[in-house]
């Protein structure tokens, strides 16, 4: 729900600042519609008219994401709970519930899609770019642990067999986890081949 407020003042600026004081928000958090420009008149005496503005409190990116996802999950008939937090850079969504598995999808495919769409929804109406990060039942952390373990294991195998290993296609985020895990390994190096969305990490001997 958006809050709407109408204020008057001698000038448009004064009317706006009165509204901002009352709402206790910054100028960037509202939309302003000038209803009446006002007029200082001649010598401030003849023909003075007060300025009138309508100030609408903008939805924050977090609120927009929550509204979007709430509606999507409702239409999907999913039973989940959601907590949304936000700071200057990003919106963080945490999801829990019995239907989490459906939202994660095969190798996190659905989770990525929802995150991508939410990001578009937030950054639709210009303004500063905000990242959206969705996590479900700690999936991201668990996946990261799995990838770290996997890269160590595969590095061992490359060293023993002296043959390259190509991993399955992964998202940029997941590839980065593998690159950084093996970055300081003395015996192997990593690089990526192929084009998105089929880009894969290769582990090879140095």
């Amino acid at each position, binding site marked *: 729900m958006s809050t709407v407020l109408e204020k008057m003042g001698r000038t448009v600026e004064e009317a706006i600042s009165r509204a901002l004081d009352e709402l206790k928000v910054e100028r960037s958090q509202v939309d302003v519609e000038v209803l009446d420009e006002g007029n200082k008149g001649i010598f401030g005496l003849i023909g003075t008219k007060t300025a009138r503005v309508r100030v609408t409190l903008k939805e924050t990116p977090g609120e927009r994401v929550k509204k*979007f996802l709430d*509606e*999507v999950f409702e*239409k*999907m*008939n*999913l039973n989940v709970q959601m907590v949304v937090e936000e700071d200057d850079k990003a919106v963080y969504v945490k999801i829990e519930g019995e239907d989490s598995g*459906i*939202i994660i*999808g095969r190798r996190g*495919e*659905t989770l*990525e*899609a*929802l995150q*991508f*769409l939410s990001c*578009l*929804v937030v950054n*639709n109406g210009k303004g500063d770019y905000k990242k959206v990060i969705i996590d479900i039942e700690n999936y991201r952390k668990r996946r990261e642990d799995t990838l770290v373990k996997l890269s160590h294991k595969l590095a061992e195998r490359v060293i023993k067999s002296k043959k390259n290993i190509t991993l399955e296609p992964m998202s940029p985020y997941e590839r980065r986890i593998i690159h950084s895990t093996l970055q300081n390994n003395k015996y192997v190096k990593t690089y990526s081949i192929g084009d*998105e969305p089929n880009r894969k990490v290769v582990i090879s001997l140095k």
Partner: protein
Amino acid sequence: MKELLETIVRALVDNPDEISVNEVEGEKSLILELRVAPGDMGKVIGKQGRIAKAIRTVMKAAAVKENKRVVVEIIQ
């Protein structure tokens, strides 16, 4: 299914009033024909079809619960 597609697309386009979804029900699959304003085509397809792919992925996930195959066709 139709409502879910409309919900997602409405949040992405500039002209939500011009969205239309036509359902074609098959035996095992459901085809959803999506039409949007010409200027909004890019907003539902995206670079290299990235947005269209994400929309289809979410629709597929929703279909799991209903035990159906769902196909989203974007019509010019």
